[in-house]
């Protein structure tokens, strides 16, 4: 059997999608931003992102971190957002990315004290 690992890809155990894992934060996000469920992780958002050019973070990754529960990475990534809205404009599925980012910022309480 030939697997993807044979071509130099790695499997990140913590980034595996597991639909059975309970994820309260994701549920809350879907309630607030229903269009988030349309995301197909195509990566258009990351391709246009100002900060992904320099940090490697993009909306696709933020969404993935939210889904898999990697909240530490998510919090780090949210801080880099310049909020220009290009990800919203290029999204082929019409995900309201800007609202999703503000709501994520609010849920994960990364306010300055």
């Amino acid at each position, binding site marked *: 059997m030939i697997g993807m690992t044979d071509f130099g890809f790695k499997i990140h155990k913590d980034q595996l999608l597991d639909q059975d894992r309970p994820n309260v934060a994701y549920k809350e996000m879907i309630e607030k931003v229903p269009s988030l469920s349309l995301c197909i992780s195509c990566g258009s958002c990351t391709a246009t992102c100002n900060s992904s050019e320099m940090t490697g973070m993009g909306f696709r990754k933020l969404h993935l971190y939210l889904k898999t529960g990697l909240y530490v990475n998510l919090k780090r990534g949210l801080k880099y957002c310049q*909020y220009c809205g290009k990800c919203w404009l290029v999204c082929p599925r019409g995900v309201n990315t*800007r609202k999703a980012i503000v709501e994520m*910022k*609010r849920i994960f309480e990364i306010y*300055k004290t």
Partner: protein
Amino acid sequence: MESFFVIPFTIGLIFLIISLTASYIRWFMALRIKNKVRLKKALSIKWLVVSLVEVFRECLLHIRIFKVNKRLWYMHMSLAFGWFLLILAGHIETISKTGTFFASPYKAIFLDFYTRGHLETGWSVTGFNYIMDILLIFVLSGLFLAIYKRFNAKLLGVGKTANHSSTDKVALAFLWLVFPARLIAETLNHTFYDGGGFFTGFLGNLIYLQENYNFLSNAAWLFYSSVLGGFFILLPFSRYMHIFTEIPHIFLKNANIEVLHDDGITNFQVHACSSCGICLDTCQMNVKTGLMGQSLYFLRNLRNGKKPKENSIMNCLMCGRCKQVCPVQVDTLSIRMNERNRMNGKMNYDFSYLDEASWPAFQSRIVFFGGCMTRLTPAIREAMKKIFMLTGEDFIFIDEYEAICCGRPLLLSGQYEAFREIVNRTRRRILDCHPALIVTTCPICLNTFKNDYYFQIPVVHHSQYLNSLIKEGRFIPQRNGVKTVYHDPCELGRDLGIYSEPRKVLDSLVYLQNKDYKAGDGLCCGGSLADLELDVEEKMQIARETIEQIVTNDTQQLTTGCPLCKMTFQMAGLYPVKDLAEIYAESMITLPVEKITANMKIRNYSNMPVNR
């Protein structure tokens, strides 16, 4: 004692005065120190005179509504100015009859009750009776229009009317009853006791009742007094608070007091809003009304002490059309920004990665800042590059790689601290090139550069730059006959007042169909970055409505000066859309190279418009 009926009125009046004084003192104390200093510095005779004239023009004559809609103006003016004149004439009549200057308020208002049976004659008595009757008819005509507006608003030229809260409706009922109550009271007064003018006296004579029914007259006076008192008690809790709050609002406004980040002045402005609905008529948010995000409902929720919901605060294009038409000049945008700051102002950010960016920082005469939106529209970017190259300019395209935002989207979402941080970085990045001129193709960036960056060098929109090229004879335009309509971007037109330059440029390139414009009347494309609630489909609906309103039946293409508007219109997909830079660059190719290179020289940018 028959005159006990004045008690409801007196209680209402005393409550009103105490309530207003307490509110105004509280709000004034909440003013920021900066604004208090501004007010102190503004105190002068000129300020006083200008403000008093404005109070007379706006609180009573409603000149700004006159400019919007004449029938609506008559309704408002007859109620406000008519009532004022009624009070004024009543007091003058009282002074002339009693001989004392300071009569009690109830003496003046219920004068006909107190002069019952004193059958005086003479030109002054008859004259006053006539004047009072004319004024009452004047007010009642306005009242008739106001009632009619509830059934058929179209006749008064209003498309959408406000849906008022229950408190407002009760207060409205009291207000509407005031004048009929006065009419009834005067009429019955003149039925039993002679006198009265041509109207109330005549009506009084029409009715014949026996002498022992004269308790009806007293009851009518009591009713009138109660209605007035009830209205006064409801006034501080309803939209009719605007009647008195507009006066301090005008004085503060003329002292150049800023609304941003100030709760005190916000309170004054919120209560000065009359919920008249003129802003509702111009608001483009027809597609999503359920959230009550429109300025009228937003301000009403603030006024009632109900905190507006998060999504109603964010459901606004911030196009500024409501601010433009507001007859009270409430700074709706700043009040909304205050709320957004309160919500999102302290959110965390980390832009330290921008320090490691390796942008090219060599010295250039022109810094061309495309902005985020221009990165998504490469046609504009390439067109501008071509224009710079063909005119031999020493330019640098500063955000071609490792782009940085101007910060306005952060500002509009309320993340003020993050905004200041990114402004510092972008500013440093631009000034590292020591430019003589900054050109941007994005009105959103231009607005931020002009208002928040405090550059000492001229910052221009590309339409202004291209216009200067044409004016200096550096470029001879080749005109073609494509029928084009120009769309005014909100930030370029309403915010910065740049209307003529893009039109001049386009007029020399294509057949421009809308050469005439009305300042401040532009429509939003719907793609505004300020809104967080609209779906793609709803934005497209706004875009289509806007396109429908600006095109004519033989339009061939749309132009605009904003990459975001261009993208939104393209997505709506009714007409081909081009930025004016593209049209400019296209016509440039048709010129012979010798002509272009003939007068390449180092230009002086000192005549460009500097910051405001």
